[in-house]
């Protein structure tokens, strides 16, 4: 791995520039109508670099990253599977890239056909009656889902229902979303074997219950075995069930959230349907709903009339929760998901759930055999599972974070660390279906090797990583002595 790269601003030289990219200078008279009082005094201080300098700089920066294309990336809850190159290439055909979001439907029938079919396929895999594609991330889809639950209760004149129940192991976005929707969060505990505490749920529901947000398999990687009972309790109390689709990959083609009793779901297309994670985004968080919530879906949707496709807007859905993006969400991401789903087809999609689950259970079995502890040894893994390093932390003073950092030296991106919060010293490991047995075996070897180091020369592990462009960073300093933008050093 290259060691480091200076900042683009440090390459900057006054008067230099990638001038081949610039338009010809406009007649200054054309700017005469812009009033001086509204003009900028001096040009913005952007870097002044040549094209090759910029290309080298950003290429080198890219090389400082781990990525799926270069490394095993078993980040639990994130479904870091291979992003097929075809999905990018065909979503970036020039006509798709050039199309303006407000162009007439007549010049977008090809695009709209893809989006319409994507809606239909997502309905089929989720068991839902309606799908909206505009939410731009999982958390955005969560927002749409809870906003629909609120709108549904309000439309029935049931104004008291403002409580959202979440299990204690839920993703942080769940309670944050409930708050954004003006709801109050009630956390309920889970049982020792990892299922929702049904007695606690029964005690928690009531006339104020708007709904419950659940991930299934849960953030512990465990299938919620009493899901039908949970659904009955919440529905009988007048609440609705929200499915956080973060872990849909585990059950794709095996069981559908709609059949489990969920009323609304968001699907992370950047996870299950393999659109790129892009260094943190853009994602896409399509929402699916049961019949009761269809009128509240966010706009726009894509409708079909005979052979023609058109946008459905506020005029078609007067009860819609409204608009979530300026236009149609992350359209280019939606196209990538569409291409992926067509490439897989129904047979491929069933294999996804099967092989993601196979890989997770295999890796879990191998790590257990190698002496690592799992908190739920009697349970099957979903598509991910937890290893707890509580024992290593206590006996060897080597933590989950230390293992994670040392894994980087072995050429593996670390699993998710310290989430879920209720399992101490945890690594949440999600291999995904696109990794081979060889890669999983190599990961087990690395973990065993690190365990040996932890026993024999723990400092090697506790001071890791040693081979990255930087060693461990001072996060406290980062937060206290804020340095968020570059400023030239005074001469």
């Amino acid at each position: 791995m290259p060691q480091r790269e200076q900042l683009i601003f440090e390459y900057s030289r006054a008067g230099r520039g990638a001038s081949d990219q610039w338009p010809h200078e406009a007649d200054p008279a054309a700017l005469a109508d812009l009033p001086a009082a509204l003009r900028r005094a001096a040009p913005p201080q952007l870097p002044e670099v040549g094209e090759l300098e910029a290309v080298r700089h950003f290429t080198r920066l890219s090389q400082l990253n781990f990525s799926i294309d270069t490394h095993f990336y078993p980040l639990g809850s994130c479904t870091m599977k291979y992003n097929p190159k075809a999905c990018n290439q065909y979503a970036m055909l020039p006509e798709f890239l050039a199309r303006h979001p407000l162009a007439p439907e007549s010049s977008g029938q090809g695009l709209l056909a893809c989006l319409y079919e994507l809606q239909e396929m997502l309905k089929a895999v989720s068991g839902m009656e309606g799908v909206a594609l505009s939410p731009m991330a999982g958390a955005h889809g969560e927002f749409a889902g809870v906003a629909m639950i609120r709108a549904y209760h309000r439309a029935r004149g049931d104004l008291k229902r403002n409580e959202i129940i979440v299990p204690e192991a839920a993703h942080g976005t769940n309670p944050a979303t409930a708050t954004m929707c003006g709801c109050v969060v009630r956390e309920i505990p889970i049982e020792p074997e990892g299922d929702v505490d049904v007695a606690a749920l029964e005690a928690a529901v009531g006339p104020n219950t708007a709904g419950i947000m659940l991930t299934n398999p849960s953030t512990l990687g465990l299938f919620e075995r009493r899901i039908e009972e949970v659904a009955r309790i919440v529905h009988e109390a007048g609440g609705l069930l929200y499915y956080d689709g973060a872990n849909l990959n585990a059950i794709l083609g095996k069981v559908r959230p709609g059949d489990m009793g969920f009323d609304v779901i968001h699907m992370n297309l950047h996870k299950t349907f393999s659109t790129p994670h892009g260094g943190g985004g853009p994602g896409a968080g399509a929402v699916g709903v049961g019949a009761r919530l269809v009128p509240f879906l966010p706009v726009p949707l894509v409708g079909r009339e005979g052979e023609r496709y058109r946008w459905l807007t506020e005029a078609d859905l007067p009860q819609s929760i409204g608009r979530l993006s300026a236009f149609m969400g992350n359209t280019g991401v939606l196209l990538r998901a569409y291409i992926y789903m067509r490439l897989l087809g129904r047979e491929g999609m069933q294999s996804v759930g099967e092989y993601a689950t196979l890989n997770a259970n295999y890796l879990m079995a191998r790590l257990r055999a190698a002496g690592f502890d799992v908190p739920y040894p009697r349970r099957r893994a979903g598509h991910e599972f937890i290893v707890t390093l509580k024992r290593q932390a206590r006996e060897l003073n080597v933590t989950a974070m230390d293992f994670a950092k040392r894994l980087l030296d072995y050429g593996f991106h670390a699993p998710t660390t310290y989430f879920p919060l209720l399992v101490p010293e945890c690594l949440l490991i999600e291999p995904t279906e696109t990794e081979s047995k060889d890669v999983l075996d190599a990961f087990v070897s690395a973990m065993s090797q690190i365990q040996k180091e932890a026993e024999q020369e723990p400092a090697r592990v506790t001071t890791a990583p040693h081979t990255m462009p930087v060693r461990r960073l001072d996060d406290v300093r980062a937060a206290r002595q804020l340095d968020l933008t570059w400023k030239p050093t005074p001469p």
Partner: protein
Amino acid sequence: MAFIPHTQADVAAMVDAIGVARIEDLFDEIPQGLRIKSLAGVPTALNEMEIGRLMGARARADGAPLSFIGAGAYEHHIPAAVWGITTRGEFYSAYTPYQAEASQGTLQMIYEFQTMIARLTGMEVANASMYDGASATAEAALMAVRANRKSKAARILVPATVHPHYRRVAVTTASNQGLKFEELPYCTAEGITPSASLARYEGQDITALMVQQPNFFGRLEDVDALTDWARARAILVIAIVNPTSLALLKPPGEWGARGADIAVGEGQPLGVPLSSGGPYLGFMTARMEHVRQLPGRIVGRTLDVAGREGFTLTLQAREQHIRRAKATSNICTNQGLAVTAATIYMSLMGPQGLTRTAAAAHARTRELIAALTRVPGVRLAFPGPYFHEAVLTLDRPVAPVLKSLSNRGILGGLDLSGYFPELGNALLVCATETKTAADVERYRAQLTEAMQAARAA
């Protein structure tokens, strides 16, 4: 199939290691009655050659019309290097830089992005981006309520000249938290927000005032007067700006005597293709005193244990994975790829290139307006300065004229009659540096014919 590399021998060894007979046994915790046998409703698989053929046909069906639509999404030249580098696997297939040591590329790139956006807007701090300009605007309203501790009312004044979709997104996003958005009328003769319209709010508890520059009509608002009025009354100013325009126009950090408090906008013009609406990026900036109220990811520079500089996500105590129900927002991503593209674009343009782009776009729009207003029945709706976008008024309904133009391969602009019926037959048009003099002449000639056809009909 499905990019799964397993051989039969692999599977046999793996189920054996797990201690089950077959893969199916791994699903034995799922109640039998819930299991499905197949995914009817999903078509059977296509191979890559077949999907290529299908997508190629669909793309061609959409064609490549000559477009003069702006309205918040702008066609600009994008250097080949921008997406050539952005789609490198190391950027494309990485995730949120949770493991900072293995993500220095993404982290440093975001730090450079934050710096460039702060300089462009004249603001002190920028985050790693929001979903798009509309969602950044909605989050700015929520942020203003947190940041303005003197105000209890959660009332936001929103000029009608702010992009209508942004206004709707703000309502969808923030109304469940009790925010009240109050529309400020605009002058239908001038197309801007008169400072006088603020007088009725004198002495009232107002949390923030939004100002879009250029506004939705392309017109330039009196940002200094609006900012000064608000800041003198402890009302926060939320600027919504077009990044290209900032090469020429006064940045929000310099509006009025003290500048805006929060500045947001749509980053799409910075190297991101139109792509029917996304993925784009919303940029979000603020004055330093409000940094802890910013939503979203923020990257900071710090030192490692050996004293070397490095980059990391910082101020995470604001965020959902730490604060859960008390977080500043539920957002847990940014628009990483679009941010990468914007950062490379700004580097290639630099101060000179971006200034030339802004000037060329504006010059071309002036030529367009001059040409189109020579067509009988077409006039400029508002006198006064605009930037690279303007409203025309036709002497007949806009929709049939646009349809006729569309049949001739020209997208003539956005019909405003559904958004601003009081303006009559209003048409929002835009040209950028990507349009040639011949394109402008083609539009003029075709509009002349389309208007005649509409008159005849």
